[in-house]
């Protein structure tokens, strides 16, 4: 079945070509200067250039978000199923087969069963959403995702009144996912959202990036994106969606309950026990890129803060 695309935006429209050109030459100059600096000479010229170069978005409105390159997005991320290093997913995901694919839907819903990829995605129009991505490790990117609003998808299964949460599960394929052969995390990776979070219009079931099918290392063929939460909430390569009455277990809060909670909302005021969450390193900004202040709910406070009225965000981290 042909996948419909909302407004065929070419990636060349999203990221103007000259930005890439400028970016490369900037990085080269800056880095050469950087070598000088490390051995003790000044770098004022490079600093001046850094201020002018259009490397990272400086204005923080949604329309002005300038996406990272496809190379940044596809070569630097966490996906422990393929290895622990952030370069590992790109290196070790080549043998992963994202098709055929099916997703099992179960729990508190009228429509349950196992559906293949086309049955899941087919009836929807694929939209493009340029979102900030903030990793709990204090780095960030801007990514032009393609996907469908999760709420639209979930409504088709007609969750009942007992469906208070939605749980998700990643595929287990040790033969194609070398990271799963090491016991660093308990696989399958599991994640969950409250039903309100899952139904929020910002929450996306992602099928692609930059107009191409989702690469294996980014969670092919179906992954979640919850842009106001730390990246680990946005579970990849989803094979199960369950509607539940109670809060489902989530992998990182099982692995390190004092460091990662169920909510994991981006919050500059609540630090990780081992590092500050007040600022973040912008991927792609090079050697002289400045850390930028982290925004409450990753800049989506206006849209999502009302989901958490009355909730102690420090306790429910």
């Amino acid at each position, binding site marked *: 079945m042909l996948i419909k695309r909302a407004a065929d935006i070419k990636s060349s429209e999203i990221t103007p070509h000259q930005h890439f050109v400028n970016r490369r030459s900037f990085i080269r100059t800056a880095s050469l200067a950087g070598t000088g600096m490390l051995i003790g000479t000044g770098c004022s010229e490079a600093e001046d250039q850094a201020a002018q170069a259009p490397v990272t978005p400086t204005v923080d409105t949604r329309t002005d978000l300038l996406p990272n390159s496809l190379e940044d997005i596809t070569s*630097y991320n966490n996906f422990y199923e393929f290895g*622990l290093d952030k370069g590992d997913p790109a290196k070790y995901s080549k043998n992963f087969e994202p098709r055929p694919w099916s997703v099992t839907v179960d729990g508190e819903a009228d429509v349950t069963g196992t559906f293949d990829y086309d049955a899941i995605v087919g009836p929807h129009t694929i939209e493009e959403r340029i979102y900030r991505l903030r990793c709990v490790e204090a780095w960030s990117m801007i990514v032009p995702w393609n996907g469908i609003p999760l709420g639209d998808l979930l409504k088709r299964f007609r969750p009942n009144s007992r469906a208070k949460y939605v749980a998700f599960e990643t595929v287990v394929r040790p033969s194609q996912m070398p990271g799963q052969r090491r016991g660093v*995390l308990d696989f399958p990776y599991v994640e969950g959202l409250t039903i309100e979070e899952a139904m929020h219009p910002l929450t996306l079931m992602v099928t692609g990036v930059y107009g191409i099918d989702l690469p294996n290392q980014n969670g092919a063929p179906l992954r979640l994106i919850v842009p106001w939460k730390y990246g680990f909430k946005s579970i990849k390569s989803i094979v199960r969606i369950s509607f539940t009455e109670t809060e489902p277990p989530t992998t990182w809060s099982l692995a390190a309950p004092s460091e990662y909670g169920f909510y994991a909302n981006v919050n500059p005021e609540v630090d990780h*026990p081992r590092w500050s969450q007040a600022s973040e390193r912008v991927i*792609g900004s090079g*050697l002289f890129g400045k*850390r930028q202040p982290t925004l409450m709910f990753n800049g989506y406070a206006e849209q999502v803060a009302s989901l958490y009225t009355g909730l102690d965000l420090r306790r429910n981290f």
Partner: protein
Amino acid sequence: MPSRSQVSIQASTCVETSRGCRFLVSQRAINRFWKPVVFVACLVPLAVLMLRISMIAQFTLGPNPIEAIQDQLGIWGLRFIMLTLAMTPLRYAIGQAWPIRFRRMFGLFAFTYCSLHFLNYLVLDHRFDFPAIIEDITDRTFITIGFTALLALIPLAITSTNNWRRKLGRKWVTLHKLVYGIGAATCWHFFASAKKDLTEPLAYIAILTVLLGARIMHDARKSRVPAA
């Protein structure tokens, strides 16, 4: 700890055993040949890092170059601390004095890499954002430990010269025992900074345990010998 005369006895034993050995580890060969060679070798990790930074920046250091620099400088700082700590057990193991002659150089390289590790954090990563840095040092245990270890390296680096050694006499030996604490603190710093996979930090903790164990066993044996 053996005195200077013991060391020279061990060295001369070596001279008697083989001609090749005499040539390779004679004081002259060490000073004129091995020390410069080892010095250059110790600079290789730094040179490789510079090359990765300068040539085709983003490609070889990846999309997060500052993090890559931080990790590389840190791991080499730790490796040089381990190398420094390995020289005395190596001397016991092979019964020759020459490893000790490289101990100061490794120690100073440990100090160099650890300092650059901190400088990268201070300058490139945090751009002298002192409130954030002070918060890190006071509130986050693994940074407190790492920073303390770096501070402890400073007096060792300063007093590493022959002059200082002579001036301090026995106190010098006591002062430089700090390096054991620094080794343990550095391993702890690495261990506590790891997100989930502890394989590599545990490997360094194992190496440290072996190195310290070898020393303790040697000292215990030595203290038994005169009594027997």
